[in-house]
């Protein structure tokens, strides 16, 4: 813990406002810019992929070409030139390493700067980490210990080679190839991501986490994560994301699929802190992400927790398909926007199974000139006898120039369903601020205190190790928002 705090403060000193805005000077190998079938073949061969995988990608690509870009969100997006992006970039030195000692020291230093020590002996909190740098996974820690428990935790590129039957069975079984524009694009060009498999009745002995880092210029990051938990298993997984400060927009289009079988539970947490761009809206990451979980078995449970503070644009709706009887879906979200950031985020709870339950707690905080939209769907289908949903959407406004929007869609096809929706919009009152100031608390600390209080119900869902980090992050994201 002490080491982490030290590295974080060192980075703060080194980089100023956006704490993770530095660039690692490292040699990389890139595919030529642009997107066509040859690039996809290049990626596939770089990854040593089997024929079926290549064909799957090509099929997705051909489908993508026919799809229109979605425009239904409340986002204003500058046109993206998909041929002006590098779809593959890898640090030159990471190929075929067998231990962390062979990882480029520059890379290790980068992760150290981010407060993510990859050297196992340095990890005190017992969290296994997979680190993805641009297009490839550079290190995965604690693999041996996990494999003793029967848990597979590895880069997805490795899983395609070593566990093809699992990958073929589950890949795109939750998010179909043609699901949406960005997920189709991801299928065509994804380069890495994490794969987790938890066998029957195994409780994963530690938190798993992946840290995504975009380093190269004009590089898109397209990661693919697949998590499968068999009957009675449990896993808690966390992802964190950062990128250097650059003037141009960078594209991040990930797909995450979760499968929970009978009595299985998956807890998926995200702390998203991609570079948000500057105050005027220059630069920043376009974060177009498709995340979906399938509660396939009876009494299965999937819980999404997200703290979204970064990115110029966030377009993200982690969802649950509640197929199993008495299955449970949860969505806890804090989305903070400041400056010129835009977020359109929420969830979809699709109730298919009898007695399925879902809970949605969304906290949106807007400051500066930002726009923050909650968009959510609750759908109770015919067979979902006695399904229940509870939704609570709260928005907090800081300043006069920002916006908060709530767009709930509610569909009930079964009269026994019960849906509750509560929504509030509030401001940090001058009274609250003055009360804190009068106690000697500075204005910035007061805002952070009040905002963290506002988000408390969500923050308590985060794994302990990350709750403190997330709290600080919210404070940092709102710096300069008052006054």
């Amino acid at each position, binding site marked *: 813990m002490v080491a982490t705090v030290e590295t974080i403060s060192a980075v703060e000193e080194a980089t100023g406002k956006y704490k993770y805005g530095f660039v690692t000077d490292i040699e990389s190998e890139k595919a030529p810019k642009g997107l066509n079938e040859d690039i996809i073949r290049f990626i596939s061969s770089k990854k040593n992929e089997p024929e079926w995988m290549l064909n799957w990608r090509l099929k997705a690509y051909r489908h993508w070409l026919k799809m229109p870009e979605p425009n239904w969100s409340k986002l204003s997006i500058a046109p993206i030139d998909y041929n002006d992006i590098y779809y593959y970039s890898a640090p030159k030195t990471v190929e075929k390493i067998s231990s962390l000692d062979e990882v480029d020291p520059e890379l290790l230093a980068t992760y150290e700067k981010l407060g993510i020590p990859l050297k196992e002996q340095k990890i005190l909190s017992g969290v296994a980490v997979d680190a993805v740098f641009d297009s490839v996974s550079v290190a995965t820690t604690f693999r041996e210990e996990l494999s003793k428990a029967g848990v597979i935790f590895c880069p997805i590129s490795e899983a395609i080679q070593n566990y093809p039957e699992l990958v073929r069975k589950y890949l795109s079984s939750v998010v179909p190839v043609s699901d949406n524009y960005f997920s189709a694009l991801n299928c065509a060009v994804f380069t890495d991501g994490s794969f987790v498999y938890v066998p029957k009745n195994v409780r994963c002995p530690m938190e798993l986490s992946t840290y995504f880092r975009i380093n190269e210029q004009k590089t898109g990051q397209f990661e693919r994560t697949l998590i499968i938990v068999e009957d009675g298993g449990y896993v808690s997984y966390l992802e964190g994301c950062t990128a250097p400060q650059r003037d141009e927009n960078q594209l991040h289009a990930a797909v995450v699929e979760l499968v929970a079988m009978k009595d299985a539970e998956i807890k998926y947490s995200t702390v998203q802190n991609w570079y948000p761009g500057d105050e005027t809206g220059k630069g920043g990451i376009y974060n177009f992400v498709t995340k979906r979980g399938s509660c396939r078995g009876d009494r299965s449970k999937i819980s999404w927790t997200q703290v979204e503070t970064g990115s110029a644009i966030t377009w993200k709706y982690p969802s649950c398909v509640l197929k199993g009887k008495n299955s449970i879906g949860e969505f806890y979200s804090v989305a903070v926007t400041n400056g010129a950031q835009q977020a359109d985020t929420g969830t979809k709870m699709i109730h298919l199974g009898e007695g399925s339950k879902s809970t949605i707690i969304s906290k949106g905080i807007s400051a500066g000139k930002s726009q923050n939209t909650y968009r959510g769907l609750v759908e109770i289908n015919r067979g979902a006898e006695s399904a229940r949903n509870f939704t609570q959407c709260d928005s907090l406004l800081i300043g006069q120039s920002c916006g908060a929007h709530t767009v709930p869609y509610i569909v009930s096809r079964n009269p026994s369903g019960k849906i509750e929706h509560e929504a509030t919009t509030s401001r940090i009152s001058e009274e609250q601020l*003055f009360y804190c100031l*009068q106690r000697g608390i500075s204005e910035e600390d007061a805002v952070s205190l009040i905002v963290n209080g*506002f988000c408390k119900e969500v923050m308590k869902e985060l794994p302990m190790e990350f709750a403190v980090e997330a709290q600080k992050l919210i404070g940092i994201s709102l710096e300069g928002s008052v006054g």
Partner: protein
Amino acid sequence: MSILDIKKLTASVDGKEILHGIDLKINPGEVHAIMGPNGSGKSTLSYVLSGRMGYEITGGDVLLNGESIMELEADERARSGLFLAFQYPVELPGVSGMSFLRASVNSRLRERGEEEVDQLSFVKIVRAESKKLGISDDMLKRAVNVGFSGGEKKRYEILQMALLKPSMAILDETDSGLDVDALKIVSEGVNLLRHPDRSMLVITHYQRLLSHIIPDKVHILSEGRIIKSGDKSLALEVEENGYAGINDAA
């Protein structure tokens, strides 16, 4: 040297002058009371002194421990030892009482260059102080002022005063909304905090608080001016004749 020295203070709210030249000196250890009818400027005075936004000093000066605080922001004034017990303590939903209290105490300690207090020892200090004020553990676990009764809110203000150890404490209508028993507990809490190095300014409408917290001096505020000052017997005079009687005398 006096702890608080108010010199010819004029102040306005929304461009309208509310305080028309206040002079008041409070020496170390003294407890002064300001009494006055509604609209006399009592609460304005407490907000002007503590630096609330929108309460503008238009003339005169205020010295705290010999230094002018006019240029200081509200949080800086608080850290220099000025404390305001609110008439209507503010709710902070979701903000845990312990982290709020610790943040305020640590901000003071940092200001003085002293070491911040860690969580464990802080909990012990808070528990000890809470006991004196009859504040339950359950109340400490709740969010700041959320779901507190009127009496609980006032006790919580006094708890904060006990923890922050201000040199100058302003109590704004601390008796409002309290029943007899609650008034007694709160007053006893305040009396325990009387100290040769600490001065207090008790703002109240009624005399009843001053029979529990006995002041050294009483001032009558009317229409933004102190129209009469005296000892504790002045409060009894108000009780008997009302503010109108004082006005007539002045």
